């Protein structure tokens, strides 16, 4: 049955959607620039021409090819993927929980991962320290630590989802369950730290510093697969998230199975977070703030919000990683410190500008 006469699409609306597409294109360009900057800049400056030669597999001067291909490329890809994954997970969580504070932190996933790592260090003997030439410390059995962190993260997610299924997957129940679990895991970590010796304690603290430098090609491969599947899943559900934004009842009236979408979205967001945090450590801020930055620029429509948020997350992490390698070179700062240093002022600027404007 056709109720409606065919209307003329307002030209202003077409221009409006074109503007949003341009924002996404500009973010893609920014990511490309930052990606090449991440490959070029660092303790050793590699000219852009040599970066491109190295990427094409051509012969390069000195060690530049090795630096670009074997050291910086996996780090840059890890930053790109982790930024996109964490930001997408944050955007999805904020929508399905209808809570602006939705993020891996809110749901206790990051705290669970930190507890898992601490448990691996103390309980499973993964905390043997190794001093490197740059005086950095590493957790010796990083694979075991990552696996335990992943397990704890997924356990936390499953508990939250399980409580959601038991009590009806309302946003309030999910968020409050996450906050309670986060506190529980934080207390567990503190308990372990209290009884840890100084070596174990240092290893636990070191692990919580999120750092893309830990990623090798194997980790990049896993992250690419999981982030690819996760972002595709969120994209398929973008109209469902738009509908949930309009209210649960409206969404149901539009044929959305709200509880199922909410639980599946939580599951995928938790999986993304768990894999990234397990490989790179805790990187806060990206999942929480990137979606808000993008919302303030192009609104809540997930058709544009999701790709733009992924690209903003990638750009933020790539920029943070590059600056982390430059600011105290040859020392490398943990990237998690820089994400907040870069993102918080940008977010506050947008917040103030919007408030003044309105």
């Amino acid at each position, binding site marked *: 049955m056709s109720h409606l006469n*065919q209307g003329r*699409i307002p030209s202003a609306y077409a221009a*409006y959607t074109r503007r949003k597409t341009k924002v996404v294109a500009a973010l893609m360009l920014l990511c490309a620039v930052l990606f090449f900057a991440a490959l070029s800049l660092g303790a050793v400056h590699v000219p852009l021409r040599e970066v491109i030669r190295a990427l094409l597999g051509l012969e390069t001067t000195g060690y530049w090819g090795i630096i670009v291909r074997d050291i910086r490329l996996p780090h840059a890809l890890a930053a790109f993927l982790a930024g996109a994954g964490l930001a997408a997970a944050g955007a999805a969580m904020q929508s399905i929980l209808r809570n602006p504070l939705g993020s891996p932190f809110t749901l206790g996933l990051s705290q669970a991962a930190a507890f898992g790592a601490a448990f691996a260090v103390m309980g499973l003997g993964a905390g043997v320290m190794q001093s490197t030439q740059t005086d950095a410390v590493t957790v010796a059995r990083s694979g075991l630590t990552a696996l335990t962190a992943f397990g704890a993260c997924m356990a936390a997610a499953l508990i939250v989802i399980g409580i959601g299924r038991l009590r009806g997957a309302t946003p309030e129940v999910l968020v409050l369950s996450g906050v309670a679990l986060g506190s529980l895991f934080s207390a567990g970590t503190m308990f372990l730290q209290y009884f840890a010796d100084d070596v174990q304690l240092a290893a636990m603290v070191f692990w919580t510093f999120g750092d893309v430098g830990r990623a090798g090609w194997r980790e990049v491969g896993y992250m690419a697969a999981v982030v690819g599947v996760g972002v595709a899943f969120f994209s398929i559900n973008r*109209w469902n998230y738009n509908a949930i934004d*309009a209210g649960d009842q*409206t969404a149901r009236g539009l044929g959305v199975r709200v509880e199922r979408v909410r639980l599946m979205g939580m599951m995928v967001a938790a999986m993304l977070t768990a894999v990234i945090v397990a490989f790179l450590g805790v990187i806060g801020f990206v999942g929480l703030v990137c979606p808000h930055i993008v919302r303030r620029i192009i609104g809540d*429509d997930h058709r544009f919000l999701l790709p733009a948020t992924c690209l903003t997350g990638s750009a933020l992490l790539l920029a943070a990683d590059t600056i982390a390698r430059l600011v105290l070179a040859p020392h490398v700062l943990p990237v998690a410190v820089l994400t907040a240093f870069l993102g918080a002022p940008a977010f506050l600027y947008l917040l103030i500008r919007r408030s003044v404007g309105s």
Partner: protein
Amino acid sequence: MMLSVQDIRAEYRNGQLVLDNIGFSLDRGRTLAVLGPNGAGKTTLLRCINGLMKPRHGVVRVEDIDVLNLHPNAIAHRLGYVAQRHEVGRVKVFDAVLLGRKPHMVWSPSRADLSKVSGALDRLGLRSLALRYLDELSGGELQTVCIARALVQEPSVLLLDEPTSSLDLKNRLDILALIRRIVREHRMAAVITLHDINLGLRFADQLLFLKDGRVFAQVEPDALKAETVAAVYGVAVDVVRHDGQKVVIPRISVEPPTFKQKNKETP
């Protein structure tokens, strides 16, 4: 028959009976107002018709198709639902109405989807607001946007849960006149829950009174009697004819209500 509801029985999770033996039918171009005191089951009835709440028992047919056994997306093709509460985010009016095409979309909106949204905006006088954000609209404008969203679903039946509850008098009259016009022009059917009996008398073709989860009376506006209203609401009323239409006037007590005042005890 456009909409046929038979023997609906619904319970809460704790087993409390909310609706019992509810039935009615509605033709094309007709509007049914569901009336009754708070807690009578009006909203629950709409939710049962739409499959948002699974009734314990009963059948809902839209154009002879049993909709309760359909996939939610297929139900959304047949029944458009305007909820009582609306969330307003940073979404433009055009995109908010476009959401109504969701049950029909596969991946992205087609040109036909966008044209239908434009047609609905024109039809409901919203074109000038197309690029405004929802949180910049008045209550009446927002309600009209929600109706436009339900309309672009191209349903056979519109279900509206207290669409006038947060509106001033003028907006109430405008919104209900709009709904009646849409329903008649598009040969749909509409079920509206209302608190104001006089709005039902003015804009609906049938009135269904619920009391304690059961149908107390189903009458045409012209046949409404004061005893029916008094029995449903427990308030004495007069039903008078004004300007060719029936109007319900509550009898106001001459004596103001008195409240017992506690005497202060002296220590």
